[in-house]
């Protein structure tokens, strides 16, 4: 066997000092030579353990092999057969805790850069003329609620099976978190638009500005409008707040609000775009997940002199993708680990004047299995900031469940579904993605949408 290079082929990135001031994509992607080079590192293990780490079981060694041999069309088709959103997942999946964590190379060296290769193949695919055409041969129409990754993937899979599908989306543009949450510098909206264009080419209809449960009830979809089945992919968009004093001050907002103003509403172009966004000099972002990293790096790009992450646990418990963390460090984000916010301080005019915090130390593991942070007595201090952005989690939006009888949820408001079929407590109504799991990942939502499509197909076949 030829000797393998030990380290990953590095992802070409834009220089930190430049990119921290604009919204263009940070990663530039492999060239063809780099991709082939990296693909050569794969050991093509007999039992492809990497696939066990992939929630949708992409046939990884085979697609990587096709990249190595230059069969990009073959690689693209194989990839897409397993993962309907490869260009997006190649950019946003937490590979380090999924496929790449299992890679045999990773036992001694660096894993194969599976994510970068996925992105490379999918980007190549986008440069080719699309080859889909609608083939809606069936009579049963299906309604999808929510145009996030779960809904989009479910719609695509059903359309490929021949079903006429309509997606109902509450906002004025489809994409869910991919549209309003994840910023342009990490996921260019042109990629999302291309994927949506592909769905439309398959004959999927998208009706924006329709809030199911408000504009149209779920019952009306099933009865008056005659849909044979409904898939709910409404996500987990309701932001949590800390419940500490001063949260009502001007300058305190959820990361969802901050990111929506910037991404969906293009607030970074204000006043060319009409929605304003606060550009504070010093910004504290509370939390350490992907949302927190996106918010803090967005704040930098809007001109913040200091952009801080404030997190009550340590870097070990951070849930953000490692790549985002590294990028944030390079761009100059400051990290305040083991720091617990106690109060947002009033500047005397009803605006944020600072964030009073307390130092923490790690104790015994708590219910989540992570070390419990404990306060250090007498350690209080005030971080001087003008804006506080909260990225401490979201829960499912209650709009639909509040107005629909018989949709069972757990105590967090997540929809309860049959594990095998993804059917909810209402017959003919299926669900998946964050609405079921609580805030999770794009690939889990996409995988759930795909499996639900299969399940809907089986249920409709059985009904005949």
């Amino acid at each position, binding site marked *: 066997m030829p000797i393998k290079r030990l380290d990953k082929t590095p992802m070409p990135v834009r220089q930190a000092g430049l990119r921290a001031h604009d919204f263009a994509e940070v990663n530039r992607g492999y060239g063809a030579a780099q991709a082939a080079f990296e693909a050569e590192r794969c050991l093509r293990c007999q039992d492809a353990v990497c696939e066990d780490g992939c929630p949708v079981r992409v046939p990884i060694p085979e697609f990587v092999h096709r990249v190595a041999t230059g069969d990009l069309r073959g690689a693209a088709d194989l990839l897409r057969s397993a993962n309907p959103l490869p260009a997006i997942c190649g950019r946003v999946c937490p590979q380090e805790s999924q496929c790449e964590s299992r890679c045999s190379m990773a036992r001694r060296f660096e894993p194969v850069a599976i994510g970068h290769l996925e992105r490379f193949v999918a980007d190549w695919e986008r440069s080719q003329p699309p080859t889909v055409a609608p083939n809606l041969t069936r009579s049963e129409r299906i309604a999808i609620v929510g145009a996030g990754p779960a809904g989009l993937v479910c719609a695509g899979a059903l359309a490929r099976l021949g079903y006429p599908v309509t997606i109902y989306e509450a906002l004025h543009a489809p994409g869910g978190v991919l549209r309003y949450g994840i910023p342009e510098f990490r996921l260019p909206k042109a990629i999302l638009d291309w994927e949506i264009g592909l769905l439309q080419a398959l004959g999927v209809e998208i009706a924006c500005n329709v809030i199911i449960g408000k*504009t149209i009830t779920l019952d009306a979809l099933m009865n008056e409008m005659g849909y044979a089945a409904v898939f709910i992919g409404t996500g987990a968009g309701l932001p949590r707040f800390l419940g500490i004093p001063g949260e009502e001050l001007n*300058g305190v*907002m959820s990361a969802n609000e901050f990111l*929506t103003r910037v991404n969906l509403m293009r607030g970074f172009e204000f006043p060319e775009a009409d929605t304003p966004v606060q550009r504070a000099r010093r910004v504290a972002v509370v939390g350490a997940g992907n949302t927190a990293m996106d918010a803090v790096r967005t704040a930098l790009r809007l001109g913040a002199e200091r952009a801080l992450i404030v997190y009550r646990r340590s870097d070990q418990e951070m849930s953000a993708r490692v790549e985002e963390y590294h990028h944030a460090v390079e761009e100059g984000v400051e990290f305040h680990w083991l720091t617990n916010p106690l109060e947002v301080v009033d500047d005397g005019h009803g605006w944020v004047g600072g964030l009073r915090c307390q130092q923490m130390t790690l104790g015994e593991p708590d219910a989540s299995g992570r070390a419990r942070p404990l306060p250090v007595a007498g350690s209080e201090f005030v971080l001087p900031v003008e804006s506080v952005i909260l990225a401490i989690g979201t829960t499912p939006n209650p709009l639909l469940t509040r107005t629909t009888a018989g949709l069972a949820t757990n105590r967090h408001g997540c929809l309860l579904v049959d594990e095998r079929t993804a059917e909810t407590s209402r017959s003919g109504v299926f669900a998946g993605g964050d609405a079921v799991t609580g805030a999770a990942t794009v690939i889990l939502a996409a995988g759930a949408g795909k499996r639900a499509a299969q399940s809907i197909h089986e249920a409709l076949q059985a009904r005949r």
Partner: protein
Amino acid sequence: MAQILEARPLTPVTKYFRLAAPLIAAAAQPGQFVMLRVREGGERIPITIADYDRAAGTISLVVQQVGATTSLVCALEAGESILDVAGPLGMAVELPARGHVCGVGGGFGSAALLCLMRELRRRGLATTAIVGARTRELVILADELAPLCDRLEVCTDDGSTGFRGFVSQRLAQLIEAGGASRPDQVIAIGPMAMMRAIADTTRGTGIRTLVSMDPLMVDGTGMCGGCRVTVGGKPMFACVDGPCFDAHEVDFDVAMRRNKAYQAQERQARDRLACMAQREAR
């Protein structure tokens, strides 16, 4: 996309619109609102549903020109369309099963009394509408409201028509008068200062009072929390839990302050729009 079927100015700064929006018309209830966007790159703004006609499939809105986006809306005419209209959002206002309900409208807020009064009458309740404005020319929709309620009270600050004084003062008189004049519930919609005055008027009278809050909103679907209103010391999302809340529980100081969070940018946007209009005129 919603087509404008009718558009007419009510005052120099407010305009009445009737839109074709059959799905929203079919679902709307008094107290709810829609989110509008008028152009690509445009802002999403909440507008209270003034009225709806389920049979005709139309909704009515009254828009007051206060900022850049509302100015763009007010420039639209019948035959044109509004890019995005989503709704109905928020909860329907809670109505009592019986008794006498008084709706109070200040400025463009009077418009929302149209569907409220119609619905109350349909349910067989006794109704009073109090509408107010600074001066006679600014009183809106009084003729349309008159046939929909048992009693209509018009108030102007300068006394140019109707009662001379604030709507809250007239309400205080009705409460004072007692008997059939005294309402069992009050629902107020209009400028924050007026809603606060109404809250103060009914405080301690035992009259249940609701106010329709209009915080800044981004999505209007519960996704951002920008519309937080402090009610009974707790944060509530006006777009999902409201927009109508118990007037005696609302923290108006916080609400008024939060509404000014983007004042500087709003001014910048308004000036820019005016400047561009001037350039176009030249």
